């Protein structure tokens, strides 16, 4: 075998000269910022023997996130001014769509870091590793958002996932954390194997993994019998559906969300879902756009299942984290409604939904982080009883997030639902629009249940004593900032929706095909 290898090396002179592709660094500044910052942090932390000032890791990460965000914004402007382009041998693409996701993921990094700071100190887990992983995983998500090649999608997905497996297991004293990591890892590996097989089948059917090339191939050829391609697409859907928590690939979600350290859950729910949808939307809407008639029914069914299962299962939960996990599943259903429409408006709706959802879910989990207290264990509905009388501000903020998730007017949550519904209706998918709205009714029930509990004083004397024995919840600065930002975003852009709607709409318009 080795001989064969050597013999081949011998005949290399007949090949054309090697042309290394141009590397457009500006096309991936946000990713590079985060990866660089991660390495830098690792380096500084390992060189520095003294204990750094409190919160410096988080601050560093947040700053890195802000820089990445600014860089993403720069990309957005650049795309707006000079148009979209592909970079690094067509491996990634810089368009409004990618800039949108880059910005979104930067935001999750900033907010995630701010929430994690006090949490990690509370749980005595502080250290640079968490933030390094946070930034790396975000970078993976960004690659997914900017990917122009299935293998880049896959690698981004793996970077995202593998770092998240570790983050999930990060709370070493919580057995749930370990179990969640184990489940997440096994299922994640399984689903990425499926995803990979899907890539392989698509590769076989089209001869390429490059999204543009696949699209071009599909545009130029009519495959009479495209079973393998369909199977490949199906497996791609399995992999990405797993990532976004679409039914029936959702089953890890509640367990992992519940088990993971709460800030990680928040980050996972926001960033990982956003990245998954970035890839899903791009792959299906642009690359397989011509095969929309093939995938629309599937997405329809998946969306409906996701909506129904997510909301009905959330209904019967008593653990807040788990409830929010199921609710995030049902949110994925709404984003899928946008995809199902298969129109530009649909994609815009999905993007807007993700935007609104990111802030709502980060805010929600920030509160859950606080209420969970030391040990990250107090997540039962009963732990929220009477929260309004103890911490009215906190309760009000949570109410805002829950109401927004329920789709109450004058929040971004309503406009998000409204946007995807309009897309569905415009595409004449009335049934799914209606199912979506009815699922919202079911969903409203469990959001309201939490609100009721918060605003109902504890009737039981024992419970009261138990609650009184606990120290008063302190609102750490970082979490406070997160709550302020997320609440303000949710309400302000619910009342003045134009900027964010424009953002999402432009992002969908500047999606490079």
């Amino acid at each position: 075998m080795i001989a064969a290898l050597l013999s081949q090396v011998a005949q290399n002179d007949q090949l054309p000269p090697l042309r290394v592709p141009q590397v457009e660094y500006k096309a991936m500044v946000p990713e590079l910022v985060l990866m660089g910052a991660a390495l830098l942090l690792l380096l500084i932390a390992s060189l520095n023997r003294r204990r750094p000032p409190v919160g410096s890791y988080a601050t560093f990460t947040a700053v890195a996130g802000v820089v990445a965000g600014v860089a993403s914004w720069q990309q957005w402007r650049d795309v707006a001014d000079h148009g979209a382009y592909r970079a690094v041998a067509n491996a990634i693409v810089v368009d409004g769509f990618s800039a949108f996701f880059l910005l979104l993921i930067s935001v999750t990094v900033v907010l995630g870091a701010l929430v994690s700071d006090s949490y990690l100190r509370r749980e005595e887990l502080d250290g640079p590793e968490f933030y390094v992983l946070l930034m790396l995983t975000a970078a993976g998500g960004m690659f997914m958002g900017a990917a122009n090649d299935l293998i880049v999608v896959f690698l981004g997905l793996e970077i995202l996932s593998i770092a998240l497996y570790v983050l999930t297991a990060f709370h070493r004293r919580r057995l749930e954390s370990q179990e969640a990591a184990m489940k997440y890892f096994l299922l994640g590996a399984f689903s990425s194997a499926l995803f990979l097989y899907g890539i392989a089948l698509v590769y076989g059917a089209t001869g390429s993994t490059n999204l543009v090339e696949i699209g071009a191939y599909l545009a130029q050829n009519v495959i009479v019998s495209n079973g393998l391609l369909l199977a490949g697409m199906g497996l791609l859907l399995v992999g990405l559906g797993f990532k976004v928590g679409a039914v029936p690939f959702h089953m890890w979600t509640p367990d992992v969300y519940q088990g993971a350290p709460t800030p990680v859950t928040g980050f996972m729910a926001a960033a990982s879902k956003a990245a998954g949808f970035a890839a899903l939307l791009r792959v299906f809407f642009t690359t397989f756009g011509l095969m929309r008639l093939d995938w629309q029914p599937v997405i329809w069914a998946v969306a409906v299942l996701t909506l129904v299962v997510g909301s009905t299962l959330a209904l019967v939960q008593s653990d807040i984290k788990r409830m929010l996990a199921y609710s995030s599943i049902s949110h994925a259903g709404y984003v899928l409604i946008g995809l199902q429409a298969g129109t530009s408006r649909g994609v815009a709706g999905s993007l807007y939904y993700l935007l609104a959802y990111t802030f709502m879910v980060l805010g929600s989990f920030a509160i859950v982080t606080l209420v969970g207290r030391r040990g990250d264990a107090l997540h039962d509905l009963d732990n929220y009883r009477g929260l309004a009388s103890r911490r009215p501000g906190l309760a009000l903020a949570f109410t805002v997030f829950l109401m927004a998730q329920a789709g109450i007017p004058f929040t971004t949550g309503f406009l998000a639902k409204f946007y995807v519904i309009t897309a569905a209706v415009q595409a004449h998918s009335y049934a799914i629009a209606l199912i979506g709205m009815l699922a919202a009714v079911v969903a409203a029930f469990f959001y309201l249940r939490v609100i009721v509990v918060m605003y109902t004083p504890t009737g039981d004397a024992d419970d009261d004593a138990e609650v009184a024995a606990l120290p008063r919840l302190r609102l750490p600065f970082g979490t406070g900032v997160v709550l302020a930002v997320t609440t303000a975003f949710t309400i302000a852009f619910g009342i003045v929706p134009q900027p964010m709607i424009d953002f999402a709409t432009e992002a969908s318009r500047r999606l490079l095909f």
Partner: protein
Amino acid sequence: MIAAAAAEAHNAGFPLLSAMVLLPIVVAAVIALIPRNRTDIIKVVGLLGSVATGILTIVALVDFDTHAAGFQFVTQHVWIKEFGVSWKLGLDGISLFLVVLTGVLFPIALAGPKVKRDVKSYIAWMLVLEGACLGSFLALDLLVFFLFFELTLVPMYFIIAGWGYENRVYASLKFFLYTLFGSAFMLVGLVALVFLSTKGGNPLTFDLVTLADRQALAADTARWIFLAFAIGFAVKVPLFPVHTWLPDAHTEAPTAGSVILAGVLLKLGTYGLVRFGLYLFPKASVDLAPLLLTLAVIGITYGALVATVQRDLKRLVAYSSVAHLGFIVLGTFAFTSQGLSGGILQMVNHGLSTGALFLLVGMIYERRHTRQIAELNGLQKTMPVLAAVFMVVMLSSVGLPGLNGFVGEFLILLGTFVTHRWWAVVASTGVILAAVYLLWAYQRVFHGEPSEENRNLPDMTWRERGVMLPLVGLIVFLGVYPKPVLDRINPAVEHLIQHVQDHSDYRQPGVSAKHEVVDE
């Protein structure tokens, strides 16, 4: 339609309507900033806020051009360009009195019943609710309407869940979810309407007037979408058979909540049917009128029957609302000037009389701490003034001529009789049944010899009398001299009926044109 556009006078000056909607919400925000324990300041600020809003509505009433059919005081600002949504508010004869009713009822509801717990949040929510209600009545943009329509749920939900009675959690959830269920259909229908109206290159818009004038939908599509709207509004009205949230919500809500719920919120449904059902879908609403009329008639008789055997006084009044709102829907889908005008007038009437009834029941509850009819008796002896006021309000509810309820009911029944004779006849039996259940309830509660627990209850205080006075005054005034109100309602109603005739093959029968009106 040109007339309507022309009549849409753009008042360049003070944005009266926006102020009306935003003022209470701003005051609510201000209250949120006042420390919790300064309840005295909070109460004063809250009451002043709602009174000021009430004054704005009265200003609108005074400035209202009586003879114009179109929308007045219109303000319009683009809100979401992407969807062609704009902040467009306007007032016409159909909404005018509902707005005034809202402006009047809220101060009364705030001033009337006392609240013990967490006054701050309570008043803030009430004010938000007021803003949302006014927004719903004034909105001329479908999405803005829908937003306000939905927004009303939140404060009402909190008011029921926070300050209600024993079973409040169940009732408030049911209220919220049921209405949300209805709006789910409505939203889909609404969006479908908007998008289907873009056919032929029309720009995307949520503007009510534009959409109503476009009439771009095929007949059967319009019917489906109308049905979607109708479901949303029917739940809110509530129309049989989607009424069961109402008794629970009413029973468990605190007094002010019940007053507003009955007085204002239910009107959102009937108002919606008129404003959006008839206006946007003239043909479909004509086609489907028999369905809605039938449901209305069932509601009237059925609501009355069920009310008869209720053991809880508030529940009884709640079921009476089912019956009364059946009348309003009946009038709406009669498609005659009388029916429609009567329906709109009756919305106001029902707000006044049922609102007053709930206030009175609340007063009884405050004294006696029960609403069970069986535990109450002989109250007329202990509280003669309250009993007298109750009697007046009850007779108004029964539809006694000379009081407001009669005028509305008469016009509705007459208007319905012109086009749908047998429905009107059956509905008229509701008049009998109303007497049965209300009088029976009155007898059980107020008549007889008071038992020990009911003997030493204080009569109405001066504050309570002050609260009831405007209501009773209006009840009598509207019964004796409804002309000023009807004069303002009529142009808009005539215009709406003309609109329906323009877009469907329906023609309002000219009275006395036919000589033989009973089939031989």
